[in-house]
């Protein structure tokens, strides 16, 4: 018998980086579902397409850096990055916008700093900010919610994304755009007069915000905190109850 010398603690929880990331992905589900319900399959396509690009990029870069790419992929952090970014992109955004965003997030947001854990900023937000500065028009072209316009089916969605410009755009102003561009109307009038802020559309936005932000408004301030909170919420039904609005 030989004695094994290791330091305390000798017990460890079952936590894994991948389980934290998986929980964050689960936590995005309600928001994604509501986005899809109101705006059609655009967000879903963003997530799937962006995810593929992100995984491929992460794989290539970690291999180039001499790391084991399978380990890097299996912690799921790359999917969290791409998913958070793709949720924030307008549904039916052209494919190249997604590609640029994801590449920026993975390369500039994460890998140049040394990969998982060493990034000073949230990679998804780095990608988002770069896109917002570089392509403001495409980034503010949000689809019209169900009720204001016909929500595209899958075929149209694919065409919107991969052959942009071949069919009519389905965009509308977001509520924040309306508020910003509004010059004359009182807020109450705006609320009652603009279709985007009332009925289905208005409620749609409300629900979307709720689905994401209800986790905790801090998400806006610090994505890291968002990660922590979302994870906790996803795991702990008691917290869900305690913080019900």
């Amino acid at each position, binding site marked *: 018998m*030989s*004695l094994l010398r*290791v330091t*305390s*603690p000798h*017990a460890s929880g079952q936590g894994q980086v991948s389980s934290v990331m998986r929980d964050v992905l689960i936590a995005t589900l309600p928001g994604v579902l509501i986005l899809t319900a109101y705006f059609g399959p655009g967000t879903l396509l963003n997530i799937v397409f962006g995810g593929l690009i992100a995984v491929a990029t992460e794989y290539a870069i970690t291999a180039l850096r001499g790391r084991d790419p399978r380990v890097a992929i299996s912690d799921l952090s790359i999917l969290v990055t791409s998913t958070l970014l793709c949720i924030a992109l307008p549904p039916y955004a052209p494919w190249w916008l997604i590609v640029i965003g994801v590449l920026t997030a993975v390369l500039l947001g994460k890998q140049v700093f040394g990969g998982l854990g060493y990034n000073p900023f949230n990679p998804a937000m780095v990608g988002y900010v770069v896109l917002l500065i570089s392509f403001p028009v495409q980034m503010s072209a949000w689809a019209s919610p169900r009720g204001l316009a016909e929500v595209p089916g899958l075929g149209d969605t694919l065409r919107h994304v991969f052959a942009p410009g071949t069919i009519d755009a389905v965009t509308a102003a977001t509520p924040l755009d309306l508020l910003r561009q509004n010059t004359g109307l009182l807020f109450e009038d705006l609320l009652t007069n603009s279709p985007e802020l009332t009925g289905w559309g208005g409620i749609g936005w409300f629900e979307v915000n709720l689905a994401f932000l209800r986790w905790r408004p801090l998400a806006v301030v610090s994505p*890291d905190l968002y990660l*922590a909170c979302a994870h906790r919420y996803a795991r702990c039904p008691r917290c869900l109850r305690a913080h019900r609005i």
Partner: protein
Amino acid sequence: MRTIHDIHGGIHPPERKALSRPGDLQNAPIPPVLVLPVRQHLGVPALPIVAVGDTVLGGQVLAEAQGVMSVPVHAPSSGTVVAIESRPIAHASGLADQCIVIQTDGEDHWLAFEGVTSWRERDPATLVERIREAGIAGLGGAGFPTAVKLSPGPTRPIETLLVNGTECEPYITADDTLMQCRADELVEGAHILAHILSADSILIGIEDNKPDAIARVQAAISRAGVDVELATFPTKYPSGGEKQIIEILTGQQVPSGGIPADIGIVCVNPGTAVATQQAIVDGKPLTHRIVTLTGEALAAPQNVTACLGTPITQLLEHAELSVDGQQRIIHGGPMMGFAVSDLNAPITKITNCLLAPTATELPLPDPAQPCIRCGHCAEACPASLLPQQLYWYARAKDQEQLAEHRLFDCIECGACAYVCPSQIPLVQYYRAAKGQIRDSEQEKRRSDNSRERFEARQARLEAETAAREAKRAARKAAAQSQAAENGSDPIQEAIERAKARKAEQEANP
């Protein structure tokens, strides 16, 4: 009903306490050889007063306390001293220390003891002396000399004596067993301690996962018909930390860097209370303790009363350790214990548990991954620290920031490392950082000392020179004043004398 407060953080690791069947207490056999380290407590080692070849009786003093921060060591059974030498001891460092080795004779002859039943009439100071002479040091794990704890000084009046029966660490059931089997002694011991401290109230705190211990202690309190409060509180690790249990039961926080006595509380382990009772009422020194032998690598996990100085290997054999290949033997529990590096090392006053887990039971951690700043560690930390920040600063060796983030409030409970999804051995970093800070403080003290010594020497030399000058000046002044008085000049006179002598020599060649 006392309000129970919650502490920040904490975790709920699997308890695994039933494994060692708490409440069922056996005697471990007296081993053929006892190895008694002269330092089983925190502080100055005891000084051996026996010699190789001496025969000793059970309860006889083997080594005397040296000063206040020290307690004596007694023989746990009769036999012959066969060696006084450096032997491996059970310590996280894996180092050896001076030990008195006794070959037992199997007769187990004991000295006769004389106790005091009328301790209420005794002066606290004499009782404290008896406690020191009985070799009692905190049995909870730190081994702090109990006599020192019982002398908080006049500036710290003690209101409450708190018996900490939390035993929050998984696996360990030594205190649970002690509270079940020695409840009456526990209650009386607590009274003696309260009497010594002139404490107004006695509070016994037990975590609610020990219903049997709670029932037996409650029964003992009613039997004694005394005023002792028993408080139970929800199970959570690490509620048993001294600062933690105080906050749970009183809502008060011990100031950072302070001790419980600062807020009028003295906190002892139940084992210490029982040892006190035996020392005072029976006059018996501390020679045995209850040890939990547990882990799935043992075929017969159990709680035993064992002689201090029993080699670890003997107890593991008694509990039927069956392994081949690599095995971890943990002194203490799975959260804060350390891996033993030599099985011949003996158990001491602070050994509450020997844990022999299988590899599936407590798997080794995966290789550490980078910190993802998930914040789980900060949520788990009972001291409300920011473990991930401490981790970054420890890696950067930024001592200023470490102090700023209260590294020394870290109780090394391991809750942060337990929850860390990246499996970072956080506590290891904190321990290393604390060591480095202590080293550099010592370094600074040393250089301060030598600077002070140098300056003192400089000052002394200057003072000596000045004194010499002053003396010379005084002599000169005296001589001059004498000359003035006599109207003669001593120098002139000396010259005259020399001239006269020379002339004399020339006259008589």
